[in-house]
């Protein structure tokens, strides 16, 4: 029988088991070595789609206009105002401490104590830029009162640094992300807070480096959770399989796949952000899950073959490899399409995930059989059907026994299930249609709303803008009247300020060379008369102010507004209260509307407003632009990914079951199982963000294999000559049990993540548990019900073929 002339993949594998086994072992050893090079790290820019025009704009100007990664300390006094010597001195100390942080952009440190924060003063024949509180903090009561008065007079200009109630002051700086070591950075910042905080002066911290830094703070706890959850998987699996011999095989397979996956990660140099460590865990759990399916089938084949290992291995491989291949391909397609998003981090995660899942194909369906074939037959005391009904296994047995007859029993319950499934599909589709993108709150969704990091961000956002977006005017060079110093472009910049402030309560301030420098200089130049707080009426005058500002301020100050001496670009900085989807979406629409009116053309293609024909308005740079770009890409990515995954599932299943109808059925089943994710996300207020999308994508393929295994088991039973009702019942007994066990193992591992300090982990674990339950219900209840109710041709034709076994099972012992 071993010399069957027909092709059998199981036979081929076993025929070359020695060289294949050695090769796979060698590669695994190499991958373990490569896995040792995996590092923990964070790439902030990698979170955003690199090809997107907003990102390109940001990259083009970030050296001049300031990096997107900013950190802010807010000092808030409990009693009185900040105008006392202690608080003022602390502001100065915070300014200095900020300047010493590694990775800080020294030209981008701002506070009341900074020499870069100045006001214009007229003196006989000159305009003088004076810092408010540099180099010395006033110590006399009169000096402090003078400072307070000065701040009050310039309150609108100081909107970013001193709160309206004069109880809060901000010290902010921008950072070069590539030079930040987030773990150390977090500790440095915490040290600063502890050093300067006292009973009356509380210090709050916000900023993207801090949000990322908290992940490093929790790193050891996250690693502990990974270890405990792996232990939970081992325990649940061991208990579930009741310690039957070779119970460890799926775990071995999972570990080897993990070695391949991590090795691949090490080879491509991707660094895991601590928060993202949930992903390798999910991938490992997937591998183990496939391994368990194989192993359970192997046990039942051992039973059927009277304890003979060789035919059991061949049969299991022949039966499991095609559906396994299909479900793994579905898994891969679920994640590989994410790499097309153009977001570098997602690209790396997608490649890693795809390689990882692909490796489980080799491990589960080639390596595991080879290992099993070398070992003596496991002593299976009694067939699954005859085992004593106790423990977890007994529980699962009884549970499976209860619904095993369900799909084949015509009646109201089955009709309700099928109609319920259809209703669920509609509900899921509606939820999918309403799925929201981007952030919902000013804080980070990675952590709990009341966590320290979010409380700090909210405290600061109560008084100060925390996000900024750039509109960049790109023009001909000075002295063209259309250069950024020409009256019309200056007016355009100032008009945008007014337009946004007038319409949008989320816009806290708009800072531009026109509004912030030219207009006040023009006023000062005209005796401080407020009627001259306006755009200079000639480019010569504007050019003079440009020069005066350049000469009177610290190096680097001018670059924040106009990056080069040719004056062909200028930054309009829009300070926002948050970066939620709604805020950004509204802002983008407003900028578009503004440009349509102010840079639009009248009849005959002539510009409506003269002097702007060569002016281009590029948007949106800054951190807000990064988030906006991600928002635009993510929704597209998610739907693109879902659609392609469904197409892939359809094609693979159509091939496996040799029927387009089967493909469509599985597409519908996937929609049913996975659009539940949107129901869950909408219900829990989860949105698609750069953080959630890789996990959601992983979830898509996560449970498709349940249905595929069940359906192929039903088909195999029909091929074996059973009546459809009998085939469904018998397939359900083995597969239903395996699916439930796998489900319990996965839930066992995932539930440990419910205790993670990172809220993101908790929500993702809940989402994945939810998804696996819907997949399990679809796979073991809805699909069998459908098959026994509608008796699709792709199953029934084997019955009509008169029980002639197809070639694939020719090696079968029976």
């Amino acid at each position, binding site marked *: 029988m071993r010399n069957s002339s027909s092709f059998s993949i199981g036979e081929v594998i076993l025929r070359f088991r020695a060289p294949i086994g050695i090769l796979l072992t060698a590669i695994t050893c190499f991958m373990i070595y490569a896995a040792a090079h995996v590092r923990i790290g964070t790439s902030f820019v990698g979170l955003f789609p690199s090809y997107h025009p907003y990102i390109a704009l940001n990259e083009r100007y970030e050296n001049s206009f300031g990096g997107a990664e900013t950190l802010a300390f807010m000092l808030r006094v409990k009693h009185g105002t900040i105008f006392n010597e202690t608080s003022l001195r602390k502001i100065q100390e915070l300014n200095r401490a900020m300047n010493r942080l590694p990775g800080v952009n020294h030209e981008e440190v701002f506070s009341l104590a900074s020499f870069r924060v100045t006001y214009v003063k007229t003196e006989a024949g000159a305009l003088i830029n004076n810092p408010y509180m540099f180099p010395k903090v006033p110590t006399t009561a009169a000096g402090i009162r003078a400072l307070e008065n000065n701040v009050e007079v310039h309150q*609108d200009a100081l909107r970013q640094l001193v709160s309206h*109630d004069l109880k809060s002051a901000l010290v902010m700086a921008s950072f070069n992300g590539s030079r930040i070591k987030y773990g150390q950075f977090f500790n440095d910042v915490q040290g600063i807070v502890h050093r300067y905080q006292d009973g009356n002066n509380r210090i709050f911290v916000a900023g993207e480096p801090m949000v990322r830094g908290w992940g490093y703070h929790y790193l050891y706890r996250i690693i502990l959770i990974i270890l405990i959850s792996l232990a939970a998987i081992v325990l649940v699996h061991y208990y579930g399989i009741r310690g039957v011999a070779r119970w460890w095989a799926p775990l071995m397979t999972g570990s080897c796949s993990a070695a391949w996956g991590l090795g691949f990660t090490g080879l491509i140099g991707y660094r895991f952000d601590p928060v993202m460590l949930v992903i390798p865990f999910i991938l490992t759990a997937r591998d183990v899950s496939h391994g368990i399916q194989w192993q359970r089938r192997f046990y039942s084949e051992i039973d059927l073959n009277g304890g003979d290992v060789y035919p059991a291995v061949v049969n299991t491989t022949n039966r499991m490899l095609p559906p396994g291949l299909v479900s793994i391909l579905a898994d891969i397609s679920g994640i590989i399409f994410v790499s097309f998003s153009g977001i570098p981090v997602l690209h790396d995660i997608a490649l890693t995930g795809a390689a990882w899942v692909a490796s489980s194909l080799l491990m589960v369906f080639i390596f595991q059989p080879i290992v099993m074939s070398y070992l003596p037959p496991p002593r299976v005391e009694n067939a699954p059907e005859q085992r004593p009904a106790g423990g977890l296994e007994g529980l699962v047995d009884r549970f499976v026994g209860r619904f095993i007859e369900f799909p084949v029993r015509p009646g109201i319950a089955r009709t309700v299930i099928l109609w319920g499934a259809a209703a669920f599909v509609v509900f899921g*589709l509606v939820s999918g249609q309403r799925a929201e993108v981007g952030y919902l709150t*000013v804080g980070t969704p990675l952590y709990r709303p009341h966590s320290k990091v979010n409380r700090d961000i909210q405290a600061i956002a109560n008084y100060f803008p925390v996000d900024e977006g750039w509109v960049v005017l790109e023009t001909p060079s000075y002295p063209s009247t259309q250069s950024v110093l020409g009256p019309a472009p200056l007016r355009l910049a100032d008009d945008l300020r007014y337009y946004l*402030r007038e319409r949008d309560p989320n816009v806290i301030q708009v800072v531009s060379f026109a509004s912030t420098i030219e207009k006040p200089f023009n006023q000062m130049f005209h005796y401080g008369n*407020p*009627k001259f707080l306006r755009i200079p009426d000639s480019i010569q005058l504007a050019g003079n102010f440009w020069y005066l500002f350049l000469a009177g301020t610290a190096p680097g100050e001018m670059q924040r507004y106009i990056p080069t001496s040719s004056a062909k670009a200028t930054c309009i900085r829009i300070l926002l209260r948050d970066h939620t989807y709604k805020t950004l979406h509204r802002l983008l629409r407003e900028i578009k509307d503004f440009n349509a009116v102010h840079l639009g053309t009248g009849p005959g293609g002539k510009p409506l407003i003269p002097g702007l024909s060569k002016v281009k308005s590029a948007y949106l740079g800054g951190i807000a632009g990064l988030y906006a770009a991600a928002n635009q890409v993510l929704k597209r990515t998610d739907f693109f990914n879902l659609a392609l995954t469904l197409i892939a599932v359809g094609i693979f299943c159509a091939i496996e079951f040799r029927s387009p109808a089967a493909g469509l059925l599985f597409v519908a089943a996937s929609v049913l199982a996975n659009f539940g994710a949107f129901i869950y996300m909408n219900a829990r207020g989860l949105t698609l963000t750069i953080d959630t999308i890789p996990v959601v994508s992983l979830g898509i393929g996560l449970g498709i294999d349940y249905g595929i295994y069940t359906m192929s088991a039903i088909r195999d039973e029909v091929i074996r000559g059973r009546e459809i009702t009998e085939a469904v019942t018998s397939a359900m007994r083995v597969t239903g049990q395996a699916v439930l066990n796998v489900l319990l193992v996965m839930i066992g591992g995932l539930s440990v993540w419910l205790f993670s300090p990172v809220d993101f982990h908790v929500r993702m674990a809940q989402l994945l548990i939810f998804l696996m339950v819907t997949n399990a219900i679809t796979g073991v209840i809805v699909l069998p019900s459908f098959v026994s109710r509608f008796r699709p041709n792709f199953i029934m034709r084997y019955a009509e073929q008169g029980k002639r076994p197809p070639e694939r099972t020719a090696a079968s012992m029976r």
Partner: protein
Amino acid sequence: MARRRFVTVAGVALAWLALFGVAAWLGIPSRAALATAAGQPAGATARRLRLRTWENYYGVTILRSGRAIVVGDKGLVMTSDDEGRTWTREHLLKDHIDYDLYSVAFAQDGRQGWAVGDGGSIFHSSDGGTTWHLQESNASAGLLKVAVIDAQRACAVGGHGTVLCTNDGGTTWHLHKFKDFVFFDLAFTDSNNGWAVGEFGTTLHTADGGKTWTLQTGGHRSATASPYFAIAFTNASNGFAFGLNGVDMVTTDGGQSWQTGKLSGEPRSIFAAATAPGSGQLFVAGADGTLGALEQGKFAAAAGSTKNSIIAIALTPAYGLAVGRSGTVLRSEDHGKHWSPVTSSGPTSWQVRR
């Protein structure tokens, strides 16, 4: 039988697919639906004035009907018919550009009036400020102040030595240029006599309703001569001019001669001066919230504090308004003794979405 089943299966699956397609398609308009209407500025309906710290008001007048008109940034004209409680807002454009408007004034009839501003823009109203029409000014300099003699005659002054006058209701404006000086304010004591004040302590006088102007003081560039920003007469003989950092000038002979440095008490720049009808009391306002009355030659600050500069004031027996930087609109109901903001109080913080 098998074919029928296949059709059933495929039909159900196709229906689900179609639903998915519809939902994905609906996903696009749903994002557009998120784009709810933005907070558009109030159109013709009168609303309570919210505090707009990004907006400056430069001119104010109160008509005999009690209607108040305020002009400001970006061609803004605001009118109130309930003594400043609610306002309508409108932005006037000249050649698609919303030039700042710096001054507004009406004739005694309360119907014919002008608003002037940056870019030489002049807008005329003949219905008490309800509608406005652009007039050709033949000037490009910013016009900082307009004074109205009667329905046909008015003068406006501004940058680059600009003094513009009309005697035909604004159909034509005649330009008198005086050097390159900036003129900030002008005032008439009767239909013929008027004075314009500006840079380098310069005063111009007209005795023929604006047809000709003669230099009275200043007139040459000097490092020591400060500019005058505001001029007002309390009666035909007594006039006052105020300027940079507390400089002042007084006439007691109907503007034939002017004496400087007679007043004292306020070192900050004064941007506006106005005489209260009835009492004849002179009110002044200026830099960093300066606001008060002149009593026996001394500045007496009124109650109510703002740190924002006040740029224009208008008083009637019923009420007074003072407007200025960063959304400042103050109202007094006790003849200028107390002033309080008419804007709904601005937030010192805002509620953050959680």
